[in-house]
C-alpha cells in the first residue's frame, strides 16, 4: 500500500451542524458535473469561500458536519473545489460514508477543532491521522477509522470492493 503524501493547507473554520443545503444548495443539483458543483461550494454559508480558498486548503467545523441530505454532491463539491481534507468534531452519518466512498479525506478530532482557528496553517499526515498546527506548533491525533473502513480505503474504495466481490478485475 502506497503512503499518502502529507497535506498542507490553510484552515477555513465553521460552526456546528453545517448542513448539505448550505454546502451545495439544491438549485445547483440539476447537474452532477463536479466543476459546476465546486463553483458553488459552501455558497449559502460563506459566499467568499470559493473565491478565497486555494487548492489544498482545509475545511474545519464543529459537530455534525454534513447533516441533512444524502446528496453525494456535497463531498463532490468540496473535493473538486480543491479542499484537501475536512476536520470536524463529528460528521453526519451519510456524509461520512460518502466521503469514504468517493475519496475525500476526513478526520474526526474534537481537540484540534477546539484549538485551531481560521487562517491557521496545518500539516496533515493521513497515514497516521496526525494534525500539526504550524501556526501554534501543537499536534493532534484524529480518531482512526474502523478496520473495515481502512480495508475499504486500501482496497481502493467501495466500487473496487464491489468488483472484487463480483470476481471482476480491479
Amino acid at each position: 500500500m502506497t503512503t499518502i503524501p502529507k497535506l498542507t493547507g490553510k484552515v477555513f473554520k465553521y460552526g456546528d451542524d453545517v448542513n448539505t443545503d448550505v454546502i451545495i444548495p439544491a438549485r445547483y443539483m440539476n447537474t452532477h458535473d463536479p466543476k459546476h458543483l465546486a463553483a458553488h461550494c459552501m455558497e449559502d454559508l460563506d459566499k467568499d469561500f470559493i473565491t478565497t480558498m486555494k487548492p489544498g486548503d482545509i475545511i474545519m467545523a464543529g459537530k455534525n458536519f454534513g447533516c441533512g441530505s444524502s446528496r453525494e454532491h456535497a463531498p463532490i463539491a468540496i473535493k473538486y473545489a480543491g479542499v484537501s481534507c475536512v476536520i470536524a468534531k463529528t460528521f453526519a452519518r451519510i456524509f461520512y460514508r460518502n466521503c469514504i466512498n468517493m475519496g475525500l479525506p476526513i478526520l474526526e478530532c474534537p481537540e484540534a477543532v477546539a484549538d485551531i482557528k481560521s487562517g491557521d496553517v496545518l500539516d496533515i499526515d493521513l497515514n497516521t491521522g496526525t494534525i500539526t498546527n504550524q501556526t501554534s506548533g501543537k499536534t493532534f491525533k484524529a480518531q482512526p477509522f474502523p478496520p473495515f473502513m481502512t480495508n475499504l480505503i486500501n482496497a481502493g474504495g467501495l466500487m473496487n470492493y464491489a468488483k472484487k466481490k463480483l470476481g471482476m478485475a480491479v
Partner: protein
Amino acid sequence: MGMTITEKILAAHAGKKEAHAGELVECKVDFCMGNDVTAPIAVKRLRENGIKEVFDKERVAMVPSHFVPAKDINSAQQVQEVKDFSKEYGIKYFFEVGQGGIEHALLPENGLVLPGDIVIGADSHTCTYGALGVFSTGVGSTDLAYTMATGETWLKTPESMKFIFNGKLPKWVSSKDIILQVIGDVTVDGALYRAMEFAGDTIESLSLEARMTICNMAIEAGGKSGIIAPDAKTEDYVKSKAKRPYKFYASDPDATYCLVKEYDATKMEPVVAWPFQPDNIHTVSESSKISIDQVIIGSCTNGRIEDLRIAAGILKGRKVDKNLKVIIFPATQRIWTQALKEGLIEIFDAAGCIISPATCGPCLGGHMGILASKESAITTTNRNFVGRIGHPESKAYLASPAVAAASALTGRITHPAEVMPE
C-alpha cells in the same frame, strides 16, 4: 442477550444468529432506490467500472421525483440518464411522470418495501419505510451503485433509542407533532448513528400513513433509521399490496437501548419548527404572531391522502388569505387521483389553492414554489435549513397539515382550534 428489532433484521440479513450494536455486518438488501438527482451518479459509477447488470432487476426502483416534471434542460437530461439506464439494465420499476410520484410514498404504495426488509435508498428520507417494520436507511449514490451491483450493503449495527408515547393524542395533535417534539428534545444530532424506535399505545393507534410521517423525519435527529414494530395495522396495509413474502420482527423485552424516553401524549400540543433547524421547536401558541407568504401542504412527510383529508377538512367552504400562495402536493399520482375522487381537489381549488403534480418540488428548493428573500412559508415538509426552500434569507416553518391549513386561512401561524371551533 436480547436484541432490538433492528439488530434482528440485520442479523437475519447477514446470515448470523445475532447482531449487536457496534458490530460491522455485510447484509443482503431486499430493495434499493434512487431518484433523478442521486441516480445519475450511481449510474455513472456502474458504467465507469464496467458493471453491466444489477443484482436483481426487480429489486431496484428508479424514481424521478425531485425536479420533475423536468424543470429545465439539465434536469431533463438527468431524468433521461436514469431512463436510459433503466431500459438498458432492464430495471422493472422505473416510474415515469404520470405513473409515479415521490419515492417515499410511492414504494410503500406499490408493495415494494415490506416488513422485515433491509432497504437502502439514495435519499436521506429512505428511513420512512421503518414505519412498516423495515430497516431502511439513506445512503449516497456510490453506496447505491454498490448495492445495485452486489445486492448487499455494509452496516455498522446501530445502538437503538426508544421513544414511548402513551395516551390519546389531543385533537389537532398529529404524528408530525410527535416527531417534531422528539427532534426538538434530542436535537439534530442527538440520534446520530442510532436507530430510533417508536412504541407505546399512541404509536399503535396511528395509521400506517401517520407512522410514515414519524419515521420519515428520523434523519432530522441524525438517526440512521426509524422503526415501528409491525402489527395488525401493518398487516392490513401490506397484505393486498405486497409483491413478495414479508416477515414481522419485534424487539425482545430484554433488548438494550442507549436511551429510553417516555411521553404522555395527552399533554402534547401542535408544534412548529422555526428556522433554521428542524430541532428549533416552539408551540403553535408561541408562533401565532408569525405571518407567512406561502403555505406548502404535501411532500414525502405529509403528502398522503390522510394528510390531504385533514387539510381539506379545514379549508372546506372557506377561502385562503388573499396575500398567500397555498400550494398542495399530493405525494403520488395515485394520491392525486384519489384526492380528486374524494372531492378534495375541488375543495382546495375553491379555497384558492393551487394543486401541483406529484413532485418534491419546493421542499428542497427545486421548483414549484421557491421563496424570495423576504418570504416565509409554513410547510408540511421536513427541513428548514438556510436556503432550503429558496433564497438564503427566506424562512421555512415546519408543521403538520392541520396547522398549515389553519395558517392558510389567516396568513399567520395558527392553531387549528382557532379556525375550527368545536
